[in-house]
């Protein structure tokens, strides 16, 4: 262990360094004195004796140097020296330091923030046991172009024959009324099969899950979420065994779910047996689509592809047992993670990652270019240091230390920026990205902080190497003549030009993409939604519990009268649902001339009051709206939208025709179409309107829905309290939830797009700025180094305008080269992202032109300043000044 002893000795040496060195000086003096005395004794002259003593002792300084290296950790000490020197250098050129650190910090910050979101959304493990093995199972209906449709109970029973799955659980979410302490409240209930938690590998935090028998007996038992337990039971362990009133029925709390337990797209407060649907017997019999979502766990040794293969074969086998209308359906098996973050959101995230990486590259090239320019101006400094005995290694190390220091500063500032970006309200929020809140908010995670640090170090060294290339090329000769330094910088200038070309290529890609997104956003905003949302508020409400349908009609009538009487209200209407969360497949038989044929249609069915369409501002295209005459005893009537009218009666007038749900021979009533309304985009502006049927609320009163109120107010939300008091006057136990303006609700659909677009726009603005700074710096430098040449040109008769054109041309040539290269890459990128666009093509020429124009404009501006400077050069002064 002798190296250990040496190490310890050197560690001690680090402390007693100066003392030991003084000791050495004494030893040397003592030694020299004794040598001199001996020489004197042998008869030398004092002069000769001293000289001889020195000769036999040898060179003192190199020996002391060697002594010092052994005394303690020499490399460490010189490193500290380098660090101090680097700090001094960076402080001296504060402008350069600030520019480089700011540029890199913005780039690193943006990258870290975006990568944190990407990491959370795409790579974090779902919080379940062995989540890789969890899949969603869907019914596929190729004829409706439906790949992932919810399925019927009958199908699930049939699917359970498969050998690929360790378990398969059905679930559905539903809104229920909870009455607690005299207050009614709408909450979300998940209705799940008894194996739901065990399939996920989750245990209740307290209490127990309900059993299969309890589910079969439709026992009123439930588990509550951790948040509900905290909110309603103050976290008391006595909660288990107590009863709560759900939809007017007492249910017993038997378990509490773990804190932080969520299931994607099912943010429920209570979890009940799936048999608790009032229409359980109907639901159980459904064979078609759109009843249940299914989550399954693959067996240990089964891959998702094997499971898909088995299920496809199973679906073919099932066809034999099905009536012809239900045949030809497939089964889709897809990873649960794909259900959490869908294909579109994934793609958008990757695209943002690409964009932010482009910004990063542009920033790096900018700083590298800066560092190159600085490297040239420091050649003299390095040449002097080399002449004084610094080795090339030592000089390189100096550069590396400087750039590491720069990188650490940029990394720290960048991490801070990223942290802010993730923390500030309205900034990067998974909710806005269209991501579920499964993981809570996105935090700056340690992994990504590590990525940021590694990134900044890599960049630091890359940038540090830029001047190092100058070092090598210049052979470190102490050159004072400017002639040589210009020759030396020519190669560097070439490199910097290449960097500027690269920047412009990257910038046009970003600007083009941002243009595409901005245009898509405009298109999505301008699309006609079929509403006139200005001045409209909606209030979600539910009829009082256990109100039988005839009395609901009364309730609605009273409600609409009361609300219409509020001052400021122009029109009040009611719809069982204003926005569509899901559509459902129906078999519809339409009367068409002499014969009627049944059709399977994906459509939406709702009940609306007479004034609903007037309240939301949807124009009537043919026929009439509902009237008070369309009551429960009148013949059943319906209003359909244009999409459905065109589908059912493509060549004829729809008003006056009849249809019925089910087959022609079924005993359902024939319903007469009394009106056709314009298509409403009830799934957000970007989704094409689905076929829609509206029935009269008076004939088919739903248990709840949206009260739609058109007001004359500028700020319609101010009328909400009056509406709420009107509702409580009718029934104090009517649960009212979310009240919002129609404008805000429509805008919410566009939030993910708005977010993506604004991020891209910010990135492009940064890219634009950096590209401008980059080209400005280069041309400015070029003018400075060419002062003499320009002076000479002017002296022999060049015009100012000519000089201006020459400098401007130098810059624009680079910009145009970069743009050309960039466009070649940008067009395929635009095409690839066309699934994220709306209303325009991926090669939209306007976006491209705008991007090119913007970049060219900015580069002209950036080059104008140095060009003007070149024009103002005094030939005499330039030539005199070497």
């Amino acid at each position, binding site marked *: 262990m*002798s190296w250990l*002893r*040496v190490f310890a*000795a*050197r560690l001690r*040496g680090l402390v007693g360094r100066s003392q030991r060195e003084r*000791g*050495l000086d*004494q*030893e*040397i003096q*003592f*030694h020299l*004195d*004794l*040598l001199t005395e001996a020489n004197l004794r042998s008869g030398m002259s004092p002069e000769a004796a001293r000289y001889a003593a020195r000769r*036999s*002792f*040898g*060179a*003192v300084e190199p*020996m002391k140097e*060697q*002594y010092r290296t*052994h*005394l303690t950790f020499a490399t460490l000490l010189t490193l500290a020296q380098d660090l101090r020197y680097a700090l001094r250098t960076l402080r001296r050129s504060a402008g350069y330091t600030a520019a480089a650190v700011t540029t890199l910090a913005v780039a690193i910050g943006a990258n870290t923030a975006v990568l944190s979101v990407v990491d959370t959304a795409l790579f974090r493990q779902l919080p379940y046991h062995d989540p890789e093995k969890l899949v969603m199972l869907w019914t596929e209906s190729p004829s409706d172009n439906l790949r992932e449709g919810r399925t019927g109970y009958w199908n699930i029973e049939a699917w359970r024959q498969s050998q690929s799955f360790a378990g398969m659980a059905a679930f559905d979410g539903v809104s229920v009324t909870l009455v607690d302490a005299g207050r009614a409240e709408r909450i979300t209930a998940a209705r799940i099969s008894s194996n739901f938690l065990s399939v996920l590998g989750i245990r209740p935090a307290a209490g127990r899950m309900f059993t299969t028998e309890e589910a079969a007996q439709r026992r009123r038992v439930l588990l509550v979420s951790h948040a509900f337990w905290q909110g309603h039971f103050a976290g008391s362990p006595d909660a288990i065994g107590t009863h709560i009133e759900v939809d007017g029925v007492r249910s017993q709390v038997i378990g509490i779910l773990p804190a932080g337990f969520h299931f994607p797209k099912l943010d429920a407060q209570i979890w009940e047996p799936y048999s608790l649907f009032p229409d359980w017997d109907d639901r159980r019999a459904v064979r078609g689509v759109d009843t249940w979502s299914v989550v399954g766990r693959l067996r240990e040794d089964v891959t998702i592809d094997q499971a898909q293969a088995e299920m496809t074969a199973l679906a073919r086998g099932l066809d034999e047992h099905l009536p012809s209308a239900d045949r030809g359906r497939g089964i889709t098996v897809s990873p649960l993670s794909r259900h959490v973050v869908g294909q579109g959101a994934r793609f958008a995230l990757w695209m943002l990652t690409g964009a932010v990486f482009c910004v990063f590259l542009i920033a790096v090239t900018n700083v590298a270019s800066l560092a190159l320019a600085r490297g040239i101006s420091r050649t003299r400094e390095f040449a002097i240091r080399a002449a004084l005995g610094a080795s090339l290694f030592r000089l390189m190390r100096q550069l590396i230390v400087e750039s590491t220091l720069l990188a650490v500063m940029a990394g720290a500032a960048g991490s801070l920026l990223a942290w802010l970006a993730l923390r500030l309200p309205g900034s990067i929020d998974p909710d806005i990205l269209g991501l579920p809140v499964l993981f809570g908010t996105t935090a700056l995670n340690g992994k990504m902080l590590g990525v940021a640090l590694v990134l900044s170090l890599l960049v630091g060294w890359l940038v540090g190497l830029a001047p190092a290339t100058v070092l090598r090329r210049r052979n470190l000769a102490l050159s004072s003549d400017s002639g040589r330094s210009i020759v030396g910088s020519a190669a560097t200038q070439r490199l910097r030009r290449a960097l500027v070309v690269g920047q412009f290529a990257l910038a046009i890609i970003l600007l083009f993409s941002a243009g595409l997104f901005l245009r898509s956003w405009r298109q999505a905003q301008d699309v006609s939604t079929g509403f006139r949302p200005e001045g409209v508020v909606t209030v979600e409400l539910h009829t009082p519990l256990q109100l039988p349908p005839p009395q609901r009609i009364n309730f609605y009538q009273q409600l609409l009268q009361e609300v219409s009487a509020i001052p400021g209200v122009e029109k009040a209407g009611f719809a069982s649902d204003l926005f569509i969360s899901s559509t459902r497949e129906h078999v519809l038989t339409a009367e068409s001339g002499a014969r009627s044929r049944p059709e399977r249609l994906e459509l939406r069915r709702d009940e609306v009051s007479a004034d609903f369409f007037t309240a939301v501002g949807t124009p009537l295209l043919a026929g009439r709206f509902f009237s008070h005459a369309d009551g429960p005893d009148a013949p059943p009537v319906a209003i359909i939208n244009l999409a459905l009218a065109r589908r059912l009666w493509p060549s004829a007038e729809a008003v006056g025709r009849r249809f019925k749900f089910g087959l022609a021979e079924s005993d359902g009533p024939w319903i007469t179409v009394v009106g056709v309304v314009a298509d409403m985009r009830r799934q957000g502006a970007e989704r094409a309107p689905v076929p829609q049927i509206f029935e009269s609320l008076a004939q088919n009163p739903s248990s709840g829905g949206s009260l739609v109120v058109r007001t004359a107010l500028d700020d319609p939300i101010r009328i909400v309290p009056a509406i709420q008091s009107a509702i409580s006057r009718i029934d104090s136990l009517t649960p009212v939830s979310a009240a919002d303006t129609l404008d805000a609700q429509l805008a919410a659909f566009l939030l993910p797009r708005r977010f993506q677009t604004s991020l891209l726009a910010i990135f492009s603005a940064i890219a634009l700025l950096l590209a401008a700074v980059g080209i400005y710096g280069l041309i400015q430098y070029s003018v400075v180094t060419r002062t003499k040449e320009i002076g000479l040109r002017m002296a022999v008769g060049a015009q100012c305008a000519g000089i201006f054109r020459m400098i401007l041309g130098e810059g624009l040539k680079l910009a145009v080269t970069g743009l050309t290269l960039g466009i070649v890459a940008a067009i395929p990128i635009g095409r690839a992202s066309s699934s994220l666009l709306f209303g325009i093509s991926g090669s939209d020429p306007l976006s491209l032109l705008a991007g090119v124009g913007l970049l060219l404009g900015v580069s002209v501006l950036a080059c104008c300043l140095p060009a003007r400077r070149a024009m103002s050069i005094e030939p005499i002064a330039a030539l005199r000044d070497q």
Partner: protein
Amino acid sequence: MDKTDVLQGTLILLVLRTLDALGPQHGYGIARRIEQISQDVLQLNQGTLYPALLRMEQSGWISSKWGASENNRKARFYSITAAGRKRLIQETGEWKLMASTIERFLDFDPDSLARERE
């Protein structure tokens, strides 16, 4: 191994042997003894002794402390440690083995080899 390393290695042996034979010595004393005993055959740049002494001390073969010299001046005295003695024995053995091997090579008579071949 370059030249200085060989010299360094030899220097360590010489210093250890000197300290073992003569007891505590200061740097000048060690240098003088080495020159005297080698009858001035081994001439060394006396300054190089000090880095070597430092390394030997760090390795624990010698120890040092300040004391008074013959003419009552302050001087650093070096003395061999137990670990140093062990090292000396080891180094001496290696050196002797090396020296005898080299010697055998040098005493070797090429004619006898030629005769053996015939």
